[in-house]
């Protein structure tokens, strides 16, 4: 089994409640855990760093479609923070390939599942490449 992925999700963006077990794990995506926030703008880069440091394989940040933040600008803010265009950003040591930003409306849980599956596959191939290098 691969490592865990933490999904930091705006509660107004893509709605995964019906897809989640009580633990927050998504049924179709084993190992992916949802943490809900009032707005994706609340995500601190430090939270992403904490997740990766604790051993998570990847972090998905999900906000509403860019342009449609309920709180006006939250998704733009975190998008710019992830891209390093707005302080505070991620530390240099953070592996950017392990962070995924998704901007989806409430009606797009299928898209979320598809994108995260692909992300997990990428993480898996990265892990395989790493172990090939170290062994």
């Amino acid at each position, binding site marked *: 089994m691969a490592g865990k992925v933490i999904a930091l999700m705006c509660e107004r963006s893509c709605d995964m409640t019906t897809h989640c077990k009580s633990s927050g794990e998504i049924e179709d995506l084993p190992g992916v855990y949802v943490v809900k*926030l009032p707005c994706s703008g609340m995500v601190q880069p430090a939270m992403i760093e904490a997740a990766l440091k604790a051993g998570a394989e990847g972090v998905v940040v999900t906000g509403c479609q860019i342009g449609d933040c309920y709180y006006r600008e939250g998704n733009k803010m975190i998008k710019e923070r992830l891209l390093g265009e707005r302080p505070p950003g991620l530390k240099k040591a953070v592996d950017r390939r392990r962070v995924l930003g998704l901007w989806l409306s*409430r009606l797009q849980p299928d898209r979320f599942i598809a994108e995260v599956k692909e992300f997990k596959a990428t993480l898996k191939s990265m892990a395989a490449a790493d172990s090939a290098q170290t062994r």
Partner: protein
Amino acid sequence: MYTERLGLTKLFLLAEKGLNAIATSKYNPLYYHGALPQFFLWVLFLSGLLLFAYYIPTIDNAYASTALINAYTSVKYITETIPFGVVVRGIHRYAGDAMVFTILLHMIRVWFTDRYRQYRIVQWLSGVALLFLVLVIGQTGYYLVWDERSLVLTRMTVGAFDALPGIGEPLKWWFLNGKAITNFTFSNYLFIHIGLSFSLLFGLWVHYVRMQRPVVTPPPVINYLLMACVMLAVFWFPIHMEEPAMLTAQPSQFEVDWFFLAPYVLMTAMPLQAFWGLMATLTLVTCCLPYFVKTPPVEAAEVVDSKCTGCSLCARDCPYAAIEMVPAGAGSRFKLLATVKAYRCSGCGVCVGACAFDAIDLPDLLDTDVSAKIKSLVAQQSPSG
């Protein structure tokens, strides 16, 4: 916390999804719904300036000869003689209609997506006032032409004011700027139409004051498309001159511009007292709409004074201008301290994301709790990978 109202929002989410597929979110007009009327306002100011250059606000000899210079003949001159005069008139008229249409779209969207209450109350109330002003200013544009329709509208307005108890009489004399229709009436019409339109700018300031970086300009591509729509209307339904107003005549029919003149249609359909009652109720209900929905009050963000370094990042990023940087106390190592204006705070947590020092928190969801939850999720049943 967030309560489900998907039934109403779903319609807009579907429309957005469709438009995003065609136009991408950068050019989706639904994401600039507030900026669309603002664009038309500039179009109206500019085309209005051109019309103003030739408009003569008098009714001098209007009833003796059409060869003399007065309101009606100057409008006729603009329409028939000046190159593209009729186009400018068309732009002015249809941009006005488009402004009302986009304001209504804006209003319906913020209502459907639940973005009009609590910390947005000033925006909603000033928006209602702005819509009212736009409708009044737009109507007076139809008086200025001084054709048969203008005469009917003037008489109907005077009649409607007459029906108001107490204030009706002075309102009527103010409206006519005297006791009968004279040249003075036209200076008043011109003042209402042009003078009051500048008060829209003040109204817009109130509308924007509680927002950081309000979106006031759509991308140029959308502007061109909007202008193209107006031009299509200008050429499909060109403006034409009606018969001049004759004070002795009693015209009874006119073309209705539904965006501005709908109240006059209502006026003919019911007693005037009932009309005013309906108008007052409509206004009151619209103003009170935000108070009908009961939700728990917003838990405003709180600053941990001992941790705040005064870096201003939260104040810069707050979408509602709810954070003010004040001089820090004498005991502080730093120059500034963030303070939250609770009545403006939406509880969205953008400030929490902006703070690299854990110095600002939402009382009902601490960032330390979020981090702890993340860590416990990663730690439980450690993966075999």
